[in-house]
């Protein structure tokens, strides 16, 4: 080759060949631009995102490491941390998660202290914060308003304020843990809004145990708002050596790692130290308390003893008094008895006296009457004596007469009886003798008859005596009779006389006794008179005595009553006092016991204070920083796959183009060869051609895409991140740029070499001959005779042509497949994100509001809320469940934490009406039984588990850390779900896992769409005591809608890229096909093919390939989309997994549309083909 290149005909020819085949040249430029651009752009995007983040993080001094402890952090620890080599700044801070009323919302918020003075001294350009305070980390950027100047003033996150609605106040309601001794101020005035690098993900700041589990707002308050005694909750650190490195890159992580390891060595010691501090502090307080207690106890006991003693004294006195009173009373009683006896005596004396008087009076009367009687009797006696005197005298005479007569008669009878005494012994009276004589005569007669000697004489004497007797008797008898008559007369008179005499005697005697009696009576009366007079006198003195005794008694009684009353009062007092004392004593003792127990408990607590868990966290544990880093890595992942595809297409385009070029210039190559140019020189022409084309393409592509993609993609993400964009022009990263440039160049150059190597091997002679036309080939389809015969010839040609040029076919199919695939990916990603909302809220979740009650809410309180909701008429069916924010890990319990909402419904059937549990593929129902444990799909995938596998569930402590071993749960199913993660447990399963009954404290329901009504109900609900949280799913829907809008931007990029790909490939294909077939086309024209027929003849082939390519693209797109969706997916959500059929249709139609555009553009070129070409000789 001649040294003067400018005039080198070879070079000139080269330049001309470029200008003559500009289309071909531009095709290579374009495809390489697309390939390299995408590759470089995507690669720069991930890096760029990390750099943007780094600028922001470094500019705001975001912490590199953070120390947290479950027992807080003391000044000592902070000092020790600061001494750790590699740490160049430390900033301790206090924060606490609370439920707060912000405007009309009741949300979970984190209250964090910050150095207001440092903030005031700082200045910001919106991305960086400049401050002289080296220890001021996590610097806040003031967006609106001013910095707080009082403890009750705060600033909140601008991005969240925008989202939640601005409010002038933040009222802390309650904390995740007790706020006593932590937060001194509860009601804050919002004086400004800020951006915090600590919360770079504005859609969800962090997880919390409160509310719905997502932190909704961050509240930054002056340090004075916290109790100065409370320990720091975290300590932020800067690792000086890491500042120069880009965040989330390996060098950065290595630097941080070094210090982190240093710190980790110290963690045990920090923990021990902290435990000792806390213990010592607590012990000191407790000891003080115990001392106070002991003192108080002694005092109390002493007081009690005093009181007891007083009571005892009182009792003794009372008892003494009582005895006195009792004695007096007894005395008084005996006095009274005496008095009463006296009274009785007086009464009886008086009675006796009066009786005596009466008796005396009657005695007097008697005496008087007796005197009268005596007088009367004397008179009567005198009268009677006078009367009876004559009769008595007569009688006495008659009696004397009679006594004389009787004495005569008795002499006579005694003479007779003496006469007969021998004969009738024993007979004493004449009658007895008379009566006994007969019997004696008979006996003497009998005895005389018996001859008894003397008897006759006796008989005769007896008979004579008898006869004498008989003569005497009548005389006697007469005497007798006289006598008797006298006697009778006497006797008759005698009684009278006797009586009279007796009467008189009696009278005399009586009179005498009466007179005697009277005299005695008179004497007696006189004596009794004397006695009576004495008695009266005595009575009078006794009465006087008694009267004085009575008055004495009365006064004694009055005194006694007084004494008794006083005494009674004394007793009452005493008993009251005693009861009070007993009560007080009991109380005091109980209180003392309680206090002592409390102290003991406190002591036990102190003894039980475990070593705190102390962690060093780096930025990967920061929700925003890590998810941004993850997103940037996702882009890297996509960057490593997609551009590869573009490079394949670029290589194929280069291959076909260069093959065509070499073929076109076959005779030229032959000529050069014949002229003696070396193979290397000739191939250099083509290599240079390809190199220049791809070089230009690469530069254009890299330059353009390095601005576009690193801007568009973070822009799409930017809606949820607060990380500011870098200003244009974005720096071109040399690594991706160079690698992309070389890759693009390598592809085309390799393709070019492949293309020209076969031609260059041929001899010049062969090259100068026209290339033998490619032998027509039968294709497989022709073997199907009947079908083939039905096809028209133009179609036959088309079909045969399609398979004739394999490279072109491959290029087009791959290119178009890529185009369609990109479109499917774009539409599919859109579908995937819209599915999140559509399926989640259209098919799976049937409620749009969740009302969380306090953990200790009773069924009654839950029912109250349900009743209220029913009353409003705006709410649908209420389903009650236990909802807990838990953490799950894999079965080993050592893997990553995944925050999950555990839901255990009270009634599974009702719950299944508002939550559809089904498999994503096939929509088979996932059975939910009381013993079921069902995990949502994304989580199951991340944990790598399925039904039958075990996971571990942890109940995190107040600051969200896992501190126990958790509970194992064996899954029974996996269910489709897109937003957040859920673990559904049946009540039995819940019981089995936690050994505890679920507390049904959450209500899921639907609510009227009217926002005013919603606000009103929400307000009312939040005002109810037991309602903790009211979460509307709208917020979630809005978040994902925003995401969807941001994806549209990416869609545009994808569609434009797809179109570019299609244009380049199709243009190239059509161009080659037409230029290669100019002769054939001209012939057809000559044959009388109409323009349409000619177009069809050429384009049909292209269309067929495009259709084939597009069909392949649909399949390819399916996989692309799946890859992108799975790669780009954020952890908090599962994107829809299926591409909707309209997306396939759109992608297909768009591809066809691009094709038609290209073909329409090519039509004039076809029309321009001159029929004369057909007459020309074959080259």
């Amino acid at each position, binding site marked *: 080759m001649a040294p003067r290149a400018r005039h080198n005909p070879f070079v000139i020819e080269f330049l001309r060949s470029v200008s003559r085949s500009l289309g071909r040249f531009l095709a290579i430029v374009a495809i390489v631009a697309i390939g390299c651009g995408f590759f470089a752009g995507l690669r720069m995007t991930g890096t760029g995102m990390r750099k943007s983040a780094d600028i922001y993080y470094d500019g705001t001094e975001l912490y590199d490491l953070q120390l947290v402890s479950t027992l807080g952090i003391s000044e000592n620890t902070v000092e020790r941390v600061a001494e750790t080599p590699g740490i160049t700044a430390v900033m301790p801070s206090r924060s606490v998660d609370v439920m707060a009323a912000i405007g009309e919302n009741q949300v979970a918020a984190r209250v964090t202290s910050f150095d207001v003075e440092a903030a005031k001294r700082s200045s910001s350009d919106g991305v960086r914060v400049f401050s002289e305070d080296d220890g001021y980390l996590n610097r806040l950027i003031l967006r609106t308003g001013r910095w707080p100047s009082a403890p009750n003033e705060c600033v909140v996150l601008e991005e969240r304020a925008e989202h939640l609605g601005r409010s002038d106040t933040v009222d802390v309601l309650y904390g995740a843990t007790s706020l006593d001794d932590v937060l001194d101020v509860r009601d804050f005035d919002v004086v400004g809004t800020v951006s915090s690098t600590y919360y770079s993900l504005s859609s969800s700041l962090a997880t919390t145990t409160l509310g719905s589990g997502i932190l909704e707002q961050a509240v930054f308050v002056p340090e004075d708002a916290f109790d100065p005694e409370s320990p720091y909750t975290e300590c932020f650190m800067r690792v000086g050596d890491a500042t120069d490195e880009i965040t989330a890159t390996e060098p950065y992580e290595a630097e941080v790692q070094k210090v982190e390891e240093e710190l980790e060595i110290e963690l045990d010691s920090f923990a021990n130290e902290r435990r000792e501090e806390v213990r010592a502090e607590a012990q000191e307080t407790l000891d003080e308390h115990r001392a106070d207690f002991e003192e108080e106890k002694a005092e109390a006991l002493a007081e009690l003893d005093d009181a007891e003693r007083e009571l005892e004294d009182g009792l003794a006195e009372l008892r003494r008094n009582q005895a006195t009173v009792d004695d007096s009373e007894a005395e008084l009683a005996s006095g009274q008895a005496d008095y009463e006896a006296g009274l009785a005596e007086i009464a009886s004396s008086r009675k006796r006296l009066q009786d005596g008087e009466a008796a005396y009076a009657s005695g007097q009367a008697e005496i008087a009457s007796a005197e009268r009687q005596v007088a009367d009797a004397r008179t009567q006696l005198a009268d009677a004596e006078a009367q009876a005197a004559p009769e008595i005298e007569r009688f006495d005479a008659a009696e004397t007469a009679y006594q004389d007569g009787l004495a005569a008669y008795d002499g006579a009878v005694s003479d007779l009886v003496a006469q007969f005494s021998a004969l009738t012994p024993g007979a004493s009276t004449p009658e007895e003798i008379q009566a006994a004589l007969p019997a004696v005569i008979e006996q003497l007669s009998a005895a005389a008859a018996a001859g008894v000697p003397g008897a006759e004489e006796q008989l005769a004497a007896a008979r004579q005596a008898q006869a004498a007797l008989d003569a005497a008797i009548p005389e006697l008898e007469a005497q007798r009779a006289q006598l008797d008559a006298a006697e009778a007369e006497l006797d008759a008179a005698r009684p009278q006389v006797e009586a009279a005499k007796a009467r008189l005697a009696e009278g005399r005697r009586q009179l005498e006794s009466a007179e005697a009696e009277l005299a005695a009576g008179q004497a007696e009366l006189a004596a009794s008179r004397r006695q009576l007079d004495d008695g009266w006198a005595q009575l009078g003195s006794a009465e006087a005595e008694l009267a004085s005794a009575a008055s004495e008694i009365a006064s004694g009684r009055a005194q006694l009553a007084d004494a008794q009353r006083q005494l009674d009062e004394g007793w009452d007092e005493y008993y009251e006092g005693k009861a009070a004392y007993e009560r007080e004593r009991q109380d005091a003792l109980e209180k003392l016991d309680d206090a002592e127990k409390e102290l003991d408990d406190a002591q036990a607590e102190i003894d039980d204070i475990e070593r705190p868990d102390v962690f060093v966290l780096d930025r990967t544990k920061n929700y925003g920083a890590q998810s941004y880093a993850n997103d940037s890595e996702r882009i890297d992942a996509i960057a490593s796959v997609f551009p590869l595809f573009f490079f394949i297409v670029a290589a194929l385009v280069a291959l076909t183009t260069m093959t065509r070029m070499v073929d076109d210039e076959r005779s030229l190559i032959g000529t050069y060869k014949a002229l003696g140019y070396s193979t290397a020189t000739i191939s250099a022409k083509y290599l240079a051609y390809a190199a220049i084309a791809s070089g230009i393409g690469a530069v254009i592509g890299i330059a353009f895409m390095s601005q576009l993609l690193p801007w568009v993609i973070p822009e799409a993400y930017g809606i949820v991140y607060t990380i500011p964009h870098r200003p244009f022009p974005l720096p071109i990263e040399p690594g991706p740029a160079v690698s992309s440039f070389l890759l693009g160049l390598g592809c085309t150059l390799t393709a070019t070499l492949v293309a020209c190597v076969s031609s260059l091997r041929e001899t010049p002679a062969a090259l100068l001959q026209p290339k*033998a*036309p*490619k*032998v*027509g*080939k039968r294709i497989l389809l022709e073997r199907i005779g009947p079908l083939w015969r039905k096809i*028209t*010839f*133009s179609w*036959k*040609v088309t079909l*045969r*042509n399609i398979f*004739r040029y394999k490279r072109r076919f491959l290029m087009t199919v791959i290119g178009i497949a890529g185009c369609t695939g990109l479109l499917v990916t774009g539409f599919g990603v859109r579908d995937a994100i819209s599915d999140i909302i559509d399926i989640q809220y259209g098919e799976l979740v049937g409620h749009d509001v969740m009302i969380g009650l306090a953990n200790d809410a009773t069924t009654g309180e839950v029912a109250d809320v349900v009743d209220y909701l029913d009353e409003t008429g705006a709410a649908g069916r209420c389903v009650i469940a236990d909802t807990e924010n838990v953490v799950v890990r894999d079965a080993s319990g050592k893997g990553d934490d995944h925050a999950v909402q555990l839901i255990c419904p009270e009634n599974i059937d009702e719950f299944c009406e508002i939550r559809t549990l089904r498999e994503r593929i096939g929509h088979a129902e996932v059975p939910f039984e009381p013993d079921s444990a069902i995990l949502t799909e994304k989580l199951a995938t991340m944990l790598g588990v399925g039904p039958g596998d075990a996971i571990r569930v942890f109940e995190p402590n107040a600051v969200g850390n896992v501190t126990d071993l958790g509970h194992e749960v064996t899954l029974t199913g996996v269910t489709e779900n897109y937003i957040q993660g859920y673990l559904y447990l049946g009540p039995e399963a819940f019981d089995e896992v936690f050994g505890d009954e679920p507390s049904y404290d959450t209500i899921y329901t639907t609510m009227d769409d009217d926002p005013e009504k919603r606000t009103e109900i929400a307000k009312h609900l939040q005002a109810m005591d037991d309602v903790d949280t009211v979460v509307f799913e709208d917020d979630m829907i809005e978040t994902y809608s925003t995401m969807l809008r941001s994806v549209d931007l990416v869609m545009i990029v994808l569609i434009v890229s797809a179109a570019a790909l299609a244009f380049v490939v199709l243009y190239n294909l059509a161009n080659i096909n037409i230029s290669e077939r100019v*002769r*054939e086309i*001209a*012939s057809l*024209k*000559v*044959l*009388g*093919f*109409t*323009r349409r*027929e000619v177009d069809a003849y050429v384009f049909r082939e292209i269309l067929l390939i495009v259709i084939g390519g597009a069909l392949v693209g649909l399949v390819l797109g399916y996989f692309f989309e799946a890859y992108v969706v799975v790669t780009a997916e954020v952890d908090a959500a599962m994107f829809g997994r299926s591409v909707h059929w309209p997306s396939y249709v759109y992608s297909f139609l768009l591809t066809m549309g691009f094709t038609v555009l290209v073909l329409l553009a090519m039509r004039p070129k076809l029309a321009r083909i001159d*029929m*004369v070409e*057909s*007459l020309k*000789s*074959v080259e």
Partner: protein
Amino acid sequence: MAFIEFRDVRKIYTMGDVEVNAVNGMDFDIEEGELCVIVGPSGAGKTTVLNMLGGMDQVSAGTIKLGDRMVSAMDERELTLYRRHDIGFVFQFYNLVANLTALENVELASQICDDPLPAEEVMEKVGLAHRMDNFPAQLSGGEQQRVAIARALAKNPKLMLCDEPTGALDYKTGKQILKLLQETCQTMGRTVAIVTHNLAFTQIADRVIHVHEGRAKSVETNGHPADALTVEW
């Protein structure tokens, strides 16, 4: 009235600033059923004549009539239909579609016209019944040209136009092709026009038109044309 009439046909090409009068007042007639040979040296304008007669190019001035149709007045669309229905074209380099078999190449033409001859029949007539299913690349040059003639014939055209039909063939094969064309004319009564620079062909023609510098220098009729196989050159 002749079957084909050229009346003062002119064709002026503008190439940059230069105007070239490729055909400059061409006048001739061709009767129906004649085998006409248009002969002249390179650059004489015979290809232009062929183009205009074949409906591939429009006249700048003058009239061309074929039968009762005024070809020179046709617009592009009418020309297309004219080529389609009235003209059978035989190229020097056959211009067969490589991807179609011999028979298919014939059918390719016949399918687009109204009253085609059966392709197989035509193939038999050109003596290629046995090669019908071969691809052009599998055929010799002569065979390919036969296929091309069959393709032209199958359209049942009013005029068969042949552009140097033997130009790419060897002498012997060329003669056979000429013979085929002559037979076509004689036995089938086709009007055949052959454009060539080879004066030897004039012997077989019914009419010979000598073209020179854009004009028909002379038109001869030949009462007894020779058999093509006897012609030598």
